[in-house]
């Protein structure tokens, strides 16, 4: 029904660039019932005073503490882990699965194999049903079912009305266990993948994101490598069958079930659908580290594309999520550019100077792979140099002086007060538990993070900035009108052009 971001309506006022800190959140506290009672009391007492005369700058409220319901964890005999959390508000059931597979397993000459396997698991039918029968039945039930592959994991999800629960989970199980990979759907997926390649240079935003990953990780790394016409053409139906057989096993699956069901009968149904699925050998996620010599140096690159703006990315590889400095770096990034309106980059580049609509910084980290820290903006050619200068200056300021007491207080309050939004639904609660287990992190990982945030000092932040915002390693990439760009960027280092091979 919708067709993208181009419609006349719905112009965004501003962009929440790179979202929040990116840190996973988890709340804790007293029981739900107590909370609700407390809340009513608070609101009542809050409203008892003359609010009309209250200054919003001095208003204070107690922290909303909220103990979300806890999920049950059950392990089936074949090793499949199941989280269950009932939520009877609406007659719906959601099933999410995380699969211990992913595109990191793609052979170098068959990049795209995992992605195509995921796509055709969904579209290619099962041992019991043709592709058309699957599609017909799911849409007649108004159920949604998706399967896809990421770099470090695969995922599958089902959303179904309570009345169709059993049928929905049967189809879901069939597609996970016994996908048929019908040839016509393999061909369709190949054509779609090739069309995706043809179209991936259409927009400067797509080019800058992909080329920046290559500039940081190198073009052959699992976090940056891309499909090619050749790699897609070389993938056969037999490759998909083998990839599924070798990587999708019950003991590599974490299942999360939330919604309007009853636990005992749900477990019985899951036993029926998945119980006789034999264990297999599950690969541990292993992503090669980029050699230090390859990311220690800085670089300045541009891509020549006929655009009205320069699309900028400036940053470097960084730590994993499990690094002891992670929380301090995340809050340093939050203050620098990760918190939209509140951040320094937003205030400096957008609000004060009017040079960009979308500007900020981001920290992306996982437990398996080196993370990326970057600053980004899109600005007209004539202000490109000024924006890069502001990036560098703001980064240096984070390194050279402590953040203000107020900035740190704001960052902490924002983090603690918005914590409750990470637990607004049964499915968000269970998804987080699944992610933590998949990544081998303790269940109280997020409580640990919150405690660390609360205890951070200005010195911690500055130390993290000095250690992890590194001017000697900055990689600068600009996509825009090349002739002038190379001159504009010349002050930042030895400028080289990245020439893109035509994709069509």
């Amino acid at each position: 029904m919708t067709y993208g971001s181009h419609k006349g309506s719905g112009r965004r006022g501003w962009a929440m660039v790179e979202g929040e800190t990116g840190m996973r959140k988890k709340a804790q506290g007293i029981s739900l019932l107590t909370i609700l009672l407390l809340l009513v009391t608070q609101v009542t007492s809050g409203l008892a005073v003359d609010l009309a005369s209250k200054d919003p700058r001095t208003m204070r409220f107690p922290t909303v503490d909220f103990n979300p319901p806890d999920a049950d964890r059950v392990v089936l005999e074949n090793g499949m882990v199941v989280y269950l959390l009932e939520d009877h508000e609406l007659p719906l059931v959601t099933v999410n699965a995380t699969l211990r597979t992913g595109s990191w397993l793609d052979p170098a000459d068959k990049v795209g194999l995992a992605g195509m396997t995921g796509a055709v698991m969904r579209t290619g039918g099962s041992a019991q049903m043709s592709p058309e029968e699957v599609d017909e039945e799911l849409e007649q039930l108004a159920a949604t079912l998706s399967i896809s592959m990421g770099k470090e994991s695969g995922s599958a999800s089902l959303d179904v009305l309570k009345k169709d629960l059993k049928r929905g989970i049967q189809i879901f199980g069939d597609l996970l266990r016994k996908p048929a990979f019908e040839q016509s759907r393999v061909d369709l997926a190949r054509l779609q993948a090739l069309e995706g390649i043809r179209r991936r240079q259409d927009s400067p935003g797509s080019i800058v994101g992909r080329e920046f990953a290559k500039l940081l990780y190198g073009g052959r790394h699992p976090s940056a490598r891309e499909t090619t016409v050749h790699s897609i053409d070389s993938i056969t139906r037999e490759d998909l069958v083998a990839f599924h057989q070798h990587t999708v096993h019950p003991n590599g699956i974490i299942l999360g079930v939330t919604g309007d069901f009853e636990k005992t009968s749900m477990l019985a149904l899951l036993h029926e659908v998945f119980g006789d699925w034999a264990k297999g050998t599950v690969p541990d996620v292993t992503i090669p580290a980029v050699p230090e010599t390859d990311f220690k140096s800085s670089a300045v690159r541009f891509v020549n594309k006929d655009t009205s703006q320069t699309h900028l990315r400036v940053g470097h590889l960084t730590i994993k999520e499990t690094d002891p400095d992670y929380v301090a770096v995340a809050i340093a990034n939050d203050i620098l550019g990760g918190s939209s309106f509140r951040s320094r980059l937003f205030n400096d580049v957008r609000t004060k100077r009017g040079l960009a609509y979308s500007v900020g910084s981001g920290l992306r980290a996982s437990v398996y792979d080196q993370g990326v820290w970057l600053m980004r903006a899109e600005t007209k050619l004539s202000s490109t140099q000024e924006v890069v200068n502001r990036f560098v200056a703001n980064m240096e300021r984070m390194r050279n002086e402590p953040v203000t007491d107020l900035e740190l207080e704001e960052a902490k309050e924002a983090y603690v007060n918005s914590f409750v939004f990470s637990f607004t639904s049964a499915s968000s609660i269970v998804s987080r538990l699944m992610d933590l287990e998949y990544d081998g992190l303790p269940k109280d990982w997020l409580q640990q993070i919150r405690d660390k945030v609360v205890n951070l000092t200005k010195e911690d932040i500055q130390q993290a900035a000095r250690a992890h915002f590194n001017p000697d390693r900055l990689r600068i990439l600009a996509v825009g009108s090349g002739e002038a760009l190379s001159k504009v960027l010349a002050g930042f280092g030895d400028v080289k052009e990245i020439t893109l091979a035509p994709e069509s």
Partner: protein
Amino acid sequence: MINMKRARMVACLIVVAALTTAPSHASSPSLADRVIEHKLANGMTVLMVERHQAPIVSINMTFGVGGVNEQVGQTGLAHLYEHMAFKGTRSVGTRDFEKEQAVLDELTQVGTELEQREREESARAQTEGKASTFSPALQQLQRRFKELQDKAGEYVVGNEMALLYQRHGGVGLNASTGKDITRYVISLPANRLPLWASLESDRMAHPVLREFYKERGVVMEERRLRTDDSPNGLLYETFTSTAFQAHQYGVPTIGWGSDILSLTPAATEAFFKTYYGPNNATVAIVGDINPKEVIALIEGTFGKIPSAPPIPTLVTEEPPQRGERRVEIEFDAEPALAIGYHKPTIGHPDDFVFDVIDEVLTEGVTSRLYSSLVRDKRLAASVLSDTNYPGVRAPNLFVIAATPLAPHTTAEVEAAIYEELERLKTEPISAKEFERVLNGLDADLVRSLRSNSGLASQLAFYQTVAGSWRYVVNARDRIAAVTPADVQRVVTQYLTKANRTVGVLVKKIPDKKMAAVREVQP
């Protein structure tokens, strides 16, 4: 886009009522019974739904103003005001408003004069065929402008309003401007509602247009990002302005670039005074609330704001289209296609028929256009449709959009789409297709209740564009009453060659020769 989803959402009032009568969850009454409506004496409408699952609340404040309310030469004004609404008030966002105001007044005066003179001198230079060099008097103004801008900046507490929301745990703070409406949204921990009421009633009563000229620059960057550098953005801007030649729906909401750059603080202030009165506002609040207390809170804050005069009515109507319009947009990007047919908007009986057509053609992988063009013939990589483009307060377009799958062309895809439209006449939609449409509709209605912010958005939307959130209570039944014969009649009446506009994105690689790998020395 909006309409079908909106229709679904609010019709859920019925569905949920039916579903929740089952014994297992008999506790929750139907949504229709849960919406609490309150109207202030100044005309502001408040809609509330209690949901106590988590101690949070979502608020959607919607004003009945958008791109359609702009004058020629001032396109983009509704959207620019929406940006300016984040700049604060007489108390928020400033270190000393009294001193700041004096500087802002002079800045406005100098800025307006400066821009007027710049335009005049540029025009004169152009007529005389000279390079544009500004006169000493003008250069003096430029210096003064810069000084005042720096001075004004000294009083600013940047983004203070947003910062307050963030400190208090607010998430999803945003705003959007459409053809018909402008919306301001936030979700907060439920006990922070007094903060919201204080900040929002203040900006409804006393906004200050500080940092105006900088923010205009931000909006220009937004236009470059969304439209000028986006193949789809440019395709839809051109396509839409071709389809609407008289009605304001043809004008891009973000504004034409030259208009944006000439918008003035005075025009922006006047726009605010005309369209941002409480009588043009609806606020929907969904979450862990006590409605009685919320009403008291809102009466004590917004209730003090006087009503504004009724907003001016719109007069321009789009004349009937007499003949196909075709337009091409050249861009360095793979081809795409958009086809639009003029149609009546919500409230008209035929609009419900279009909802059915929309679903049958493109909803899901079993839909007619997807299964034919994408799955079977493999002419297209994607195909979508939208029954209420680009707005809902005036007659609008039914749009079908597709991207061809190489080596097939937009012409082939277009022909295949017309074949399927013909088939709607010759091969009436089946009982099974119709059942699928209704099942999908009912399920979406239930799903839309999952989100506080989604529900708040739906309620405020229909209250604003249709006069009442209850408008859609009947939508599901109206859609259910559509017959295959209705579909055949509507296809024959509206989906004609003479009534359509076709926009085609055509690949054009810039002439610039790109060298092979090339190094540039600093």
